[in-house]
């Protein structure tokens, strides 16, 4: 009897707590997760979602000569896609992107294969190889501007000291384009290297041993085992580097300002000029949205390529 009384008391107390708990802000189990992600959502909203939405709005605005919005228009996009300078820049950007990404991937893979053995020397070497990546792109640009200087740069000095003629690196279209590519390759190959190295070291070891016993040579092992197993990692590196290279700005800004002529005028630089030099914000944002579209299509294509092959293999 006494025990029963006690149970009733406990129940009462439970009911009381439950009733009063409901009144606090965070006690609703269904709402709690939303409270928890709210801070992140707020930051994202301020820093990403709002600017993105606003720039879409801007890309549909006509701007007057004072750089002030002057009503809705669809002509910005039309203006972009009919302009020759835009297509020139698109060509430069794509050529640049394919060039540097291909070079960086092959070089990165080669370097990763070289240092993937776990010895002490290789450990130090790995650190040295990723130093370029740690520098600010702007600083790298300035260093290279000094090195590439036609009159007093160290590169020409070295060329001349072995009897070769000096090159006006940033002064002619071809060499200027090669120069900005070179800077990018110097700085960002380490990233491909690092990603591929991480991939290489996480590969299972026993298929390698099996392949050695099955009679495969080193080259056959690379072709039949390493590369297929690395494919997902390679695609990841490829997508990241492609997205990055498409929006490259710093090197051109520091080294060539898009010149000579329009030889190195990548889209981000063209649109930067349109916005901040000529106050044509509508045109600039429209152009950059087209670049974003190209980036999305290319990345999606690459990811699709990966998953399609996976599926084809399974069937």
């Amino acid at each position, binding site marked *: 009897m006494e025990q029963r009384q006690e149970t009733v008391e406990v129940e009462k107390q439970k009911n009381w707590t439950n009733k009063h708990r409901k009144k606090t802000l965070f006690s609703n189990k269904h709402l709690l997760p939303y409270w928890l992600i709210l801070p992140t959502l707020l930051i994202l909203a301020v820093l990403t979602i709002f600017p993105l939405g606003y720039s879409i709005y801007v890309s549909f605005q006509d701007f007057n000569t004072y750089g002030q919005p002057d009503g809705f228009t669809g002509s910005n996009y039309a203006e972009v896609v009919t302009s020759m300078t835009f297509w020139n820049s698109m060509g430069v950007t794509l050529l640049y992107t394919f060039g540097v990404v291909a070079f960086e991937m092959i070089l990165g893979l080669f370097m990763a294969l070289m240092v993937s053995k776990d010895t002490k020397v290789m450990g130090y070497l790995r650190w040295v190889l990723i130093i370029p990546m740690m520098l600010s792109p702007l600083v790298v640009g300035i260093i290279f501007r000094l090195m590439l200087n036609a009159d007093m740069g160290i590169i020409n000095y070295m060329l001349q000291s072995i009897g070769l003629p000096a090159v006006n690196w940033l002064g002619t279209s071809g060499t200027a384009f090669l120069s900005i590519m070179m800077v990018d390759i110097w700085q960002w190959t380490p990233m491909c290297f690092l990603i591929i190295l991480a991939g290489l070291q996480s590969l299972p070891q026993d*298929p390698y*041993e099996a392949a*050695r*016993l*099955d009679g*495969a040579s080193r080259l*056959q092992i690379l072709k039949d085992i390493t590369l297929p197993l690395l494919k997902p990692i390679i695609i990841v590196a490829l997508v990241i580097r492609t997205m990055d290279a498409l929006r490259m700005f710093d090197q051109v800004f520091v080294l060539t300002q898009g010149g000579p002529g329009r030889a190195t005028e990548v889209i981000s630089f063209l649109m930067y000029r349109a916005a901040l030099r000529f106050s044509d914000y509508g045109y600039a944002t429209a152009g950059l949205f087209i670049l974003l579209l190209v980036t999305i299509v290319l990345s999606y294509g690459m990811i699709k390529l990966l998953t399609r092959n996976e599926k084809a*293999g399974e069937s």
Partner: protein
Amino acid sequence: MEVRYENITKQFGETPVLENLNLTIHDGEFLVLLGPSGCGKSTALRMLAGLEDPTSGEIYIGNQPVTDMEPKERDISMVFQSYALYPHMSVFENITYPLKIRKVSKAERKKQADRVAEILEIGNLLKRKPKELSGGQRQRVALGRSLIREPNVFLMDEPLSNLDAKLRVHMRGEIKRLHTELGITSVYVTHDQTEAMTMADRIAIMEGGHLQQLAAPNEIYNKPTNKYVGGFIGSPAMNFVKGRYKGKEDRLDFDVFDFPIDHEWREIFERELSGDDLYLGVRPEDVQVSTTPQPGAVKGEVYVVEPLGKEMITIVRVGDHTVMACIEPDVDIEMNQEVWLQFKNHKLHMFDGKTEAKVV
């Protein structure tokens, strides 16, 4: 093809893994390397495959020294514990990879794959990827890849340890049959004594980097050369009772009971024992338990009874010693009951107290 390890020593850094291993595997033989983890058995196998280099010594396949040869030059095939299938290749590509490397034509590869698939009953899996297979199926694919060409030696590194108990028993039989049919010299590494006993022509028991005994399964079971082998083989394990040799009194002293010895035994003990200490070893099935006093029997008290259906394991305390006995399942015995133990004399093993080598 005959395989020979000559004075093989292997160290990882300062740690010795194998010391002075001498072992000959006859042509066509199925040899099992048996031992606990870290005994050096896998290292021995991997050195034969060429995946590890010995610190010193020489390995021969046939009459050819192979120690400096690459794995692919040794013409060996191996089944790994993890199967080591190529995850991105289909089953067909997996099993025919060794042929592809040898530039065998596609038609011939197809023919060989069909032949192996039929033996292993994996014909319906050829298009699948390893991740779509069960453990047992992966195991068969790994076997298939080894069987598709006729290697000099066939190596297996704990190939069944990732399978469930029922499948393991099944595959055990399959592998044994395959070996009999193909007659290829095979080396099989395992820590499972049942696998070793059921499959091997001869078993090499390894412990602490040393070969403890090399003999046919029955001999290993009935005539273990030392205490380690006696204890390692057999389930439940052999009982050991520590005692002393009292030569002048014609008996062995085990504290709570004595064991009378005759002139012949005395001679052997005098000759073989390094000191006075010794171990009596007796397998649980060689211990008889009776509920009534018997002449010459040792009195004890039942500690626990474990019925297993076809037999019953009885653990009996005799003074400070614990003795395990396997008895008929229908004997009426309870915990704490007084019982009398008798050992089958001709099944007793005596080991030296210091060297642990077999004395009788």
